[in-house]
C-alpha cells in the first residue's frame, strides 16, 4: 500500500469545561494517501470539525501523533509551524464569516503571499491575478468587499486564500453546506478540478452523505469523537458494516418518487461527549447492542480489504 501523506494515530483532543472533560476527538487513527480525498462524515457534535482543526494546528492535540509526508508534526516550534502551514491549509465552513469584512478580495488573497515575504509588489499582483483565475473569479472583483459578494464567490475567495501557499494538503470543513444547491455544485466541481490540476490531497469534512460520496475516495464515519467505520467510498455505500453507518444512510431522504419501504430510524439522540463511559459509544442507540457492547473497549478492525469497522458484532451482523 502507498504510504500516506497525512497520518494520524491515536489522535485525541479534550476540552476542559465546567461540566467535565469534553472528549471532542478521542483516539482517531487514519491515513490519507497523496492525491486522494478522505471524507469525514458525522452529525453535529461528533468532533469532525475539531479533528480538522487539530490536523492543521489550529488546535493543539491532547494526545496521539500526527505525521505529514513521513515527518512527525505533532509538536511544532514557531518556525516549523510556519513551514508546516505552507503545506497544510484549510477552507472554512461559513463563507460569510471566514472573510475579514474590512479586506478586499485582493487583500484577502494576497495576505498569505505578503506574509511569506517572498514576493515583490508586482509579483504579488501577478500571483493574486493567477489565483483569482484559478478559482474562476473575474478580475474586476479585485477591489470588492465580501459583503458585495454572494456566498459562492466568497467561498471562491476562501479557496484562493488557501491555495496561495501552494499547499499539498487542504482540510475542507463543510465548504458547501452554507451554499444553495446550484452554487454548491459549482464549488464542488471547482474543488475537484483543483485537486486534479495541482495534485492536492483533501480531507473533506461534511454532514452531507451525498456530497461526501461524490467527492471522496475514502470515507470515515465519526460518532462521538471516534471513527466507527472507514472504507473506500463506494464500498461504504454498497455494504455499510457499522449499525450507525447503516442508520445514517437510511435516514437520508431519497430524491425522486421511489419511496423506500423500511427505514432504520434511530431512537434517541447523540449522547454527550463529556466524560463518556467506556465501551461502544453508540451502544445506547444501537438496535443490535448487547450487554457486552457497554463494557468491551473497541478498535477499528478490518472487515474486508481496506474496510475497517469498530463494532464487536460487525462480522456476525454482516455475515462476513
Amino acid at each position, binding site marked *: 500500500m502507498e504510504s500516506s501523506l497525512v497520518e494520524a494515530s491515536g489522535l485525541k483532543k479534550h476540552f476542559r469545561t465546567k461540566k467535565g472533560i469534553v472528549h471532542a476527538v478521542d483516539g482517531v487513527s487514519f491515513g490519507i494517501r497523496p492525491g486522494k480525498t478522505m471524507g469525514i462524515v458525522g452529525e453535529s457534535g461528533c468532533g469532525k470539525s475539531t479533528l480538522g482543526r487539530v490536523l492543521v494546528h489550529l488546535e493543539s492535540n491532547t494526545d496521539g501523533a500526527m505525521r505529514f509526508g513521513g515527518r512527525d508534526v505533532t509538536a511544532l516550534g514557531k518556525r516549523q509551524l510556519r513551514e508546516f502551514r505552507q503545506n497544510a491549509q484549510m477552507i472554512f465552513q461559513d463563507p460569510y464569516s471566514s472573510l475579514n469584512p474590512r479586506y478586499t478580495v485582493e487583500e484577502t488573497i494576497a495576505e498569505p503571499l505578503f506574509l511569506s515575504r517572498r514576493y515583490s509588489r508586482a509579483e504579488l499582483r501577478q500571483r493574486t491575478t493567477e489565483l483569482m483565475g484559478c478559482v474562476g473569479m473575474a478580475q474586476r472583483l479585485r477591489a470588492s468587499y465580501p459583503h458585495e459578494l454572494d456566498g*459562492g464567490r466568497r467561498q471562491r475567495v476562501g479557496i484562493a486564500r488557501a491555495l496561495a501557499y501552494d499547499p499539498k494538503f487542504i482540510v475542507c470543513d463543510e465548504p458547501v453546506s452554507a451554499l444553495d444547491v446550484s452554487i454548491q*455544485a459549482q464549488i464542488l466541481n471547482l474543488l475537484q478540478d483543483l485537486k486534479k490540476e495541482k495534485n492536492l490531497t483533501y480531507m473533506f469534512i461534511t454532514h452531507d452523505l451525498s456530497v461526501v460520496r461524490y467527492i471522496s475516495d475514502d470515507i470515515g464515519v465519526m460518532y462521538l469523537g471516534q471513527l466507527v467505520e472507514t472504507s473506500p467510498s463506494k464500498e461504504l455505500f454498497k455494504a455499510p458494516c457499522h449499525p450507525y453507518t447503516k442508520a*445514517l444512510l437510511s435516514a437520508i*431522504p431519497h430524491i425522486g418518487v421511489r419511496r423506500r419501504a423500511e427505514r432504520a430510524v434511530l431512537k434517541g439522540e447523540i449522547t454527550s461527549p463529556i466524560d463518556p463511559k467506556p465501551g461502544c459509544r453508540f451502544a445506547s442507540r444501537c438496535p443490535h447492542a448487547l450487554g457486552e457492547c457497554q463494557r468491551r473497549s473497541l478498535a477499528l478492525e478490518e472487515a474486508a480489504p481496506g474496510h475497517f469497522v469498530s463494532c464487536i458484532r460487525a462480522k456476525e451482523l454482516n455475515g462476513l
Partner: protein
Amino acid sequence: MGNGASNDAGNGASKTMRGADVGEEKQKFLEVRDLSVRYETKEETVYAVNGVSFSLEKGRTLGLVGETGAGKTTIARAILGILPSPPAVVGGGEILLGGDDILGASEREMHDIRGNRVTMIFQDPMTALNPVMTIGRQIEEVIESHERVSKDEARKRAEEMLEMVGILAERYSEYPHQFSGGMKQRVVIAIALACNPDLLLADEPTTALDVTIQAQVLDLMKTLHKKQNTSTILITHDLGVVSEMCDEVAIVYAGEIVEMGSLEDIFERPAHPYMLGLLGAIPAIDGDEEKLSPIPGMTPDPTSLPPGCKFHPRCKYAAEACKSEPVGMKEIAPGHFCRCLNLAAPNLAAREAE
C-alpha cells in the same frame, strides 16, 4: 408591461387548475391567486413574490421548493398574515381560505385564523420557544387563547399533545433549554397542532437538524398528518425532504412558481430548465457521476430582476424570445404546469439524460 402580462398568465393557469379540480370534486380550501409582495426600503425595492398562484386541497401536502431568497418564506408569511410591514407591501392578489379572502383581513380576524385554522412551524426550534416558560405551559397557552376551555382541560390537552409528539408527559414542566434540538422541534410541532389547524405551514422544519433526527421528525410529521388530515405546505430547499413528504410540488424561482405538479410530474417528468438544472447539480446518493453539472451563475438580484423569463441568464436553452417576452404558466400535461417558452428543448435533454 412585462410583469403585468405574466401575472395574467399566472391567473389563467390557476383558473385552469381550478377547473380540473372541480371535475374531481375535491375539497379545495386554500387558494392563492396572483400574490405579489415586495419589500420597500428607502434604498431599494426587493421584489420577493411576483404573481404566485396555487391551490391546495384538503388533506394534501404541497412542497414549496426553492433556493435562498426565492420568496418561499414570504409566501408563507403572507398566508399567515405576519409579513413585517413596513417594509413589506402586498402588491396585489388574493388568499382564499375556505372561500374567504384573508389577505385583507383585519388583525383581529387574523388572530382568530392564526392558531385555529392556520399555524406555522418555524425553521429554528432554538428561537421559536420562549426560554423562560415551561414547554407544557407554552402549549397550554395556545389552547387557552384559541378555545374556551378550563385550565384543567387545557393542561390535559397539552399533555396529550406532548405524548402525541413522543415526549413523556412527565417532562411537562421542563424548560426549553433542557431539551435537545430535535425534541424542541417536536414541542414546536405540538404547539402548532394543538388547536387542530386546517392548514399547517412548515418553514424548513428540519433544516437545523441532523439527518438521523430529521428522519425522526419527518416520520412524526407523516404520522400526525395521517391522523389529523391537516393540509400542509412544506417549505424547503431539500429535494429529498420534498420527495418524502409531498403530494404536490411547486418550484419557486425569483418570486415566481416556475413549475408545479404532482410529485411524479416534477421528479419523473421535470420540464423547466431550472428544475432540470437542480437535479443535475445534486450528487445522487446512489449515482456514480464523475462530474456534477451545476447551474451557471446565481439567482438574480431581487431588486432588479431580468426581463422576460427570470431564469434566462442561467438557462442553456434560452432563446432570443426568452430575454424579453414575459412567460406565462402553461399546462403541459393535466395538472402539470410549467413557465417556459422553449419546452421542447429541455424535455429532449431530460430524455437524453435518462
